[in-house]
């Protein structure tokens, strides 16, 4: 649960829920918009992680 990926996913769920609730009024719209946000957050996190992988740190 405290892995980097797990915490990133949990963070994405929290933030997406708040944004979706703020930006949409109907629960169905909130669920759909929130789901897209979660997928976007996690997908972007993984993509950026792989793009940064070759960089020496």
């Amino acid at each position, binding site marked *: 649960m*405290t892995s980097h990926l797990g*915490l990133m996913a*949990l*963070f994405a769920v*929290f*933030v997406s829920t*708040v944004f979706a*609730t703020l930006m949409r009024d109907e629960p169905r719209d909130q669920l759909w918009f929130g789901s897209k946000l979660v997928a976007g957050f996690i997908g972007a996190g993984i993509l950026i992680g792989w793009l940064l992988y070759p960089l020496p740190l």
Partner: protein
Amino acid sequence: MRAAAADQVEPAINKYLVAVLAWAVPGGGHLLLRRRQKGVTFLIVLTLMFATGLWLEGRIFPLAFDLSQPLVGLAAVADLGIGIPYFIAKFMGQGAGRVVAITYEYGNAFAIVAGLLNMLVVLDAWDIAEGRK
């Protein structure tokens, strides 16, 4: 019946009271404005997010502003955005932060972002009270 309900004029609620309540209790402003679903969602999610930050051994940054550490001051302001949970956590001795914990920075991120998101929720409640939404 539905039209009669729609014709009812909502009583004017002091927007400053809404803003203060929205800050103090996450979702409180929306609950006062009868947006129950949104209010309950904010109350649960933001409180849980802040609590997760504490569980991950994040730090609640002190408000004493030190010019040599401006980022600590900014983090404290962001933490304070969550409202009463900030003071409850302080009162209970939580949020000391354990720098060597592997989840320390994650905990800070959760607590800080919960406070910042609650500031957005306050602005949303203010807009609703002003009749803009």
